[in-house]
């Protein structure tokens, strides 16, 4: 074989393997979604959304768990979202060149990748030990702490995209910086900030580990924020590892619910940018 043939052969082989790697990645995405659909759809019924989590052997649904997850996710983003947006605003506007901002950016990036189980232990020490028991509010705080770094990062990145000319125009009109930020920069970066918040919601709505030590679980309906509350991830965890077929079926249905909502949120976040931007320009 000539040298040229060998080089071509190596080229084709390497590129073929790259294609194969991509196929492997897509295969697993497909395999996971297919399993979820097949097992999850089998348990889809009205009862899933109207009944409480049952004891082993009898029928039931996931109503209390769905409610708990929604409540904690909402409180989590209501606490974490504003903090994240404000901190991102500081990094992008007031403290853009401040030395402390470099440190904060670095710390935020580290927090972004820290395992969520650590956050769970932190909130356990911070709130659960003090209150003496597990509670929905502790779970919400844990989720808020996970949402903060995501929001800080996206907000900062999005504010950078606002043209300097717009800010200068506002300043030239005599506006103070807070007025420029709230009346000019935020509206201009609206779609980006909303995308960041949606991604943060997607991120926290599937978190399980931090809830194990904060919200725990509750077999019954509870709307008391100071008490343990049922939530989809922990219910899935407990039911999937149980030996009871009806619990396992509910775990699959819950898993399908969570995954579909998260995928819809993630895809929606991608479209928000284009649609809101288009709306703003027309």
């Amino acid at each position: 074989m000539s040298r040229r043939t060998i080089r071509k052969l190596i080229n084709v082989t390497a590129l073929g393997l790259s294609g194969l790697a991509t196929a492997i990645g897509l295969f697993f995405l497909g395999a996971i979604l297919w399993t979820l659909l097949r097992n999850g759809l089998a348990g889809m019924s009205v009862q899933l959304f109207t009944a409480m989590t049952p004891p082993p052997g009898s029928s039931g649904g996931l109503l209390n768990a769905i409610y708990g997850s929604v409540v904690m996710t909402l409180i989590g983003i209501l606490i974490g979202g504003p903090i994240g947006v404000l901190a991102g605003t500081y990094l992008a506007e007031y403290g853009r060149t401040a030395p402390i901002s470099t440190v904060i950016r670095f710390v935020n990036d580290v927090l972004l990748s820290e395992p969520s189980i650590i956050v769970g232990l932190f909130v356990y020490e911070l709130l659960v030990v003090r209150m003496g028991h597990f509670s929905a509010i502790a779970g919400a705080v844990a989720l808020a702490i996970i949402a903060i770094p995501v929001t800080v990062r996206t907000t900062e990145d999005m504010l950078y995209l606002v043209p300097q000319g717009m800010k200068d125009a506002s300043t030239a009109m005599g506006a103070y910086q807070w007025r420029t930020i709230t009346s000019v920069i935020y509206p201009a970066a609206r779609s980006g900030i909303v995308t960041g918040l949606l991604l943060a919601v997607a991120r926290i709505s599937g978190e399980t580990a931090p809830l194990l030590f904060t919200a725990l679980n509750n077999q019954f309906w509870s709307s008391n924020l100071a008490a343990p509350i049922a939530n989809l991830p922990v219910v899935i965890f407990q039911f999937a590892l149980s030996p009871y077929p009806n619990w396992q079926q509910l775990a699959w249905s819950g898993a399908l619910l969570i995954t579909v909502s998260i995928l819809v949120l993630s895809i929606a976040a991608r479209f928000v940018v284009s649609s809101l931007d288009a709306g703003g320009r027309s």
Partner: protein
Amino acid sequence: MNAIAAIEPAHASAQRLRERAFHGATFVAALLVLGLLGGVAFALLIGAWPALGHFKLGFLTSQVWNPVTERFGALAPIYGTLVTSFLALLLAIPVSFGIAIFLTEMAPVWLKRPIGVAIELLAAVPSIIYGIWGLFVLAPVLQRHVQPWLIEWLGPLPLIGHLFQGPPYGIGILTASFVLSIMVIPFISAVMRDVFETVPDVLKESGYGLGATTWEVIWQVVVPYARTGIIGGVMLGLGRALGETMAVTFVIGNAHRIGSSLLAPGTTISAAIANEFAEAVGDLYTSALIALGALLFLITFTVIAAARLMLMRLGRKALSNV
């Protein structure tokens, strides 16, 4: 009207007050981010203190984990964490590299975005889903088809043979590594793709101009240029694998021992915490679990900080989605 109002002294001072309040609010929020990391470290240290004070260095070197006699050693979870993460990276790096190459150098433009989005969606799937899938789908497949084959063909080999001996449990270190590798592939390939895209076209074109094949350009131009970013991306994946909890908890078997075989059940730091925390009775038991958490924090902080420092050079724009 506003322009005239702004000249009015009372109006101006109210404006200044709001300015100061808003500036202050953003600054406090930013400091809070800084305080979070410190708070996490401090709270974990406080919680871990009773166990660390009781067992001293023995906590790191002992393999015994006995809640009844209240003797706790972290060696088995540390071993499990390191081995599963190492194996996961071993499997994930080549695949992620291939995906990044495919997305940046090979895929036609119309295919780039859908496949890129699909891989990113794989990253958005919560870890508990990987866990339940690993337990009910992957573990039985490995138990029936892959592990008997490994035992038969690799088990008798010298040196590495003992890694593949024993009964095929299905769940265990190897299965956990496999699930972990699927989980970190989207992260590593997303970073690698972003890094590859920072390579200037003119460099690649020079390579092609000299008659290099696509692969030669990738291996001799793109990879050397992007080396730091590639390592940073891999370490980010490592940080993720080290701390991953739910996916591992489902499939590792939760046994506090160091088996010589990769097919045997084991445990990791995060799996031990997730499994035992709610049932931990007694202050020493809880404190030992929090000490495990503090250990995990220390390990992951080091890895992630190193990764972020490496990726910092690339600028943040290129890596906005990781």
